[in-house]
């Protein structure tokens, strides 16, 4: 990682430069006078918290976002980038966080589309052969005739890269390329990216995984709240100082979790649980799990490995296709969502905007929704606003939700505050078990830490917790045991005190391992 420096030599114009880019959206300045450049063969990482403006900046370069002001220079010449199409023509490739592939088409068809109208255009009939050759040239293993929708996430990412590279890309932007990959898949991708840089491609890499950035990048720029706060070479900085620059202050490491070997009796358990996904495919197969009172069972897996479906089946939002679910020994598999809630099962859903909250209702109303029919919130079928407001105010205070008052719409809150509202609602009633799905997803470091603390407090109070996450470090920090899912099947279970992220990564990739 040391000693490689390929920044532009003095007097020579950089490959591409963004100058004084400003872009404001209603209520927020996403980019405030940001300038950044990229040399030939350079890997330049942009780090920052969610909402710092990284994706907006890269969107400007790739024609997805029109800036309010500022210039883009390509080899010293000012250019206008008005559309993604035009960006492609200029040699700008962009691998977005959520892939821009057409899932119903094959890999070859997606590449053919990307090359349409360019000098490298491929005839539809000779597609697969040419795409296979391209894959070999860039070291990306892929079956050109496979339907993109059937590929694993890692393979989709390779297809996305191939699509970007097939057009003779000179500047390649990648938005969180490591977010969905197992550690092993990422190491393979790192090799490909290094090879590209050596062949002269300039890479702009957005990431929030600081170790990986430090290992791969030549230079690192830090963004915070729309502004570029620092640009430095990777040699001159370490993880702690990067983190401090990102949040503007030092974040304390969470206190290590006190783990006890003996927990209470089993609270939540499944046997041979099978769940179907949205498209009728079997998303979860033969899962046996059990969580004891006061225990935290982590569930690891890359996105799409069945975590969401498992959580929904446990809570009753999705019907189990096979097997049983028991809460304190009682079979709840056929109970409705409301009945399970009444029995003391809480759920923090993966998608808080669509699944957890009613965005247009006020904070107070959202907090009272599950118990709205009970006294003192309703009398003779008519709601009692004073009682609802008092209930809201108490929870807002207790969970430190940052709002002026409880009457504002939940949709107007930041992600961290929305998640606190979901938690406050779930945790405010007596619980025996809590299923949380990606509870800190999309939150900044501060908000994530406070959410984790609240959940761990519950486990100390004797609630059984099922904690699903794609972040391995987080799972290792909070769990007693970790169950690993790959394509809906359990590939193993590890004691969190002994597990490593490498081990977990291998199992997430499908390698079987018996219980440790």
């Amino acid at each position: 990682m040391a000693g490689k420096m390929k920044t532009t030599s003095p007097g020579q114009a950089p490959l591409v430069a963004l100058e004084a880019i400003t872009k404001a959206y209603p209520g927020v300045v996403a980019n405030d006078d940001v300038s950044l450049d990229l040399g030939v063969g350079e890997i330049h990482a942009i780090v920052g918290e969610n909402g710092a403006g990284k994706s907006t900046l890269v969107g400007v370069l790739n024609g997805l976002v029109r800036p309010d002001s500022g210039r883009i220079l390509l080899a010293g010449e000012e250019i206008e980038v008005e559309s993604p199409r035009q960006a492609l023509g200029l040699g700008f490739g962009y691998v977005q966080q959520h892939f821009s592939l057409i899932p119903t088409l094959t890999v070859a068809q997606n590449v053919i589309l990307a090359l349409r109208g360019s000098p490298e255009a491929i005839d539809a009939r000779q597609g697969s052969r040419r795409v296979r050759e391209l894959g070999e040239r860039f070291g990306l293993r892929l079956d050109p005739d496979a339907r993109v929708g059937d590929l694993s996430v890692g393979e989709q990412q390779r297809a996305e890269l191939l699509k970007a590279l097939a057009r003779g890309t000179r500047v390649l932007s990648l938005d969180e390329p490591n977010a969905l990959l197992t550690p092993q898949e990422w190491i393979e991708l790192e090799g490909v990216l290094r090879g590209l840089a050596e062949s002269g491609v300039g890479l702009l890499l957005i990431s929030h995984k600081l170790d990986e950035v430090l290992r791969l990048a030549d230079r690192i720029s830090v963004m915070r709240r729309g502004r570029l706060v620092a640009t430095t070479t990777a040699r001159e900085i370490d993880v702690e100082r990067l983190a401090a620059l990102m949040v503007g202050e030092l974040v304390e490491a969470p206190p290590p979790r006190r783990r006890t070997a003996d927990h209470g009796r089993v609270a939540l358990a499944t046997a041979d649980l099978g769940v179907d996904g949205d498209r009728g495919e079997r998303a979860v197969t033969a899962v046996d799990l059990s969580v004891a009172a006061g225990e935290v069972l982590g569930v690891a897996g890359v996105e799409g490995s069945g975590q969401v479906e498992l959580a929904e089946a446990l809570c009753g939002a999705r019907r189990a296709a096979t097997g049983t679910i028991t809460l304190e020994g009682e079979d709840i598999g056929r109970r409705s969502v409301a009945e399970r809630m009444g029995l003391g099962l809480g759920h923090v859903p993966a998608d808080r905007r669509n699944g957890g909250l009613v965005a247009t209702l006020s904070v107070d109303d959202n907090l009272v929704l599950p118990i709205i029919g009970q006294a003192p919130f309703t009398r003779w079928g008519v709601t009692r606003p004073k009682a609802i407001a008092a209930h809201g105010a108490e929870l807002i205070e207790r969970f430190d939700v940052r709002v002026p008052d409880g009457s504002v719409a939940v949709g107007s809150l930041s992600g961290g505050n929305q998640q606190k509202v979901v938690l406050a609602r779930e945790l405010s009633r007596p619980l025996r078990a809590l299923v949380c799905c990606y509870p800190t997803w999309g939150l900044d470091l501060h908000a994530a830490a406070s959410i984790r603390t609240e959940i761990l407090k519950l486990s100390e109070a004797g609630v059984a917790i099922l904690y699903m996450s794609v972040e391995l470090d987080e799972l290792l920090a909070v769990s007693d045991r970790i169950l690993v899912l790959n394509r809906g099947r359990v590939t193993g279970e590890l004691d969190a005190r002994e597990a490593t992220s490498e081990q977990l990564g291998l199992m997430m990739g499908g390698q079987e391992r018996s219980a440790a």
Partner: protein
Amino acid sequence: MGSHGFVTLLLVSAVSVGTPLLYTALGELISETTGVINIELEGMMLCGAFFGILGAYWTHGVVGGFVCAALGGALLAALHGVICFVFRANQVVSGVILNIFALGITSFLLSTVLAERVSKSITHLADIKIPLLSSIPAIGPAFFDQDVMVYVALLSVPAIWWLLNRTSLGLAMKAAGERPQAAESLGVDVGRTRWLALLACGCLAGIGGGQLAIAGIGFFTENMTAGIGYIALAAVIFGRWRAFGVLGAVLLFAIADAFQIRAAGLGVHIPYQFLAMLPYLVTLVALAGLLRRSNPPSALAVNYHPND
């Protein structure tokens, strides 16, 4: 034709009923593939029928009639495009409104512009008998002794299949209907692709309406399409968004419709009203049985506005 058996007569009727339906459904297939739904197919057909007759009268020829029919359908398609793509309205709402508009405007123009004398001056399309093939028992007269527009409709099926599955334009169309944002990042001009597909649909549905009026009865009557446009919409769903699937769906509906026309001749004692329901019932049953397994373009009826 008096010497033909029931099956032959049934198929002959089915092909003449099915041809307008096939043009319209193929147009809708092209449009829906790119993500644009046209509830106003019915209106496009009605405009096609009206302007087809008017065109045939003006130009004293069938060719002019069909050109005007296509333009009439395209006119309504263009309105739909302006409402949905420029003013960003909901495609379904726009379609419903345009159907009412088309019914009103053609009825109004019928009473003011198109006098009844027009009907006398329309020349029918001559049938072209294909040697040998037309003498195949049962299917010969139905498929190989028809006017030129029937052959064009049948040949359009493989042509559109080829367009959608064997050309890069077809890939771009599917991409626009499946993931418009992704398609744009692949370099597809989603806006232009959708406009072209929509106008092509308007032309084809207009020709379908023209076929109904010009080749069918030779004049225009108020609301003469009587719901065929909606059946075309259903045929695309039942055909599972595939060219040959659409052909199969159209044949099924056309045979059901032909059956209710011909059943009277069989001497069956079923009230006429029940027979007339048959094609619509078949549509309903076919759709109900298929809804679970159907797989429409993901971005169907979802407007796409870049840089939002």
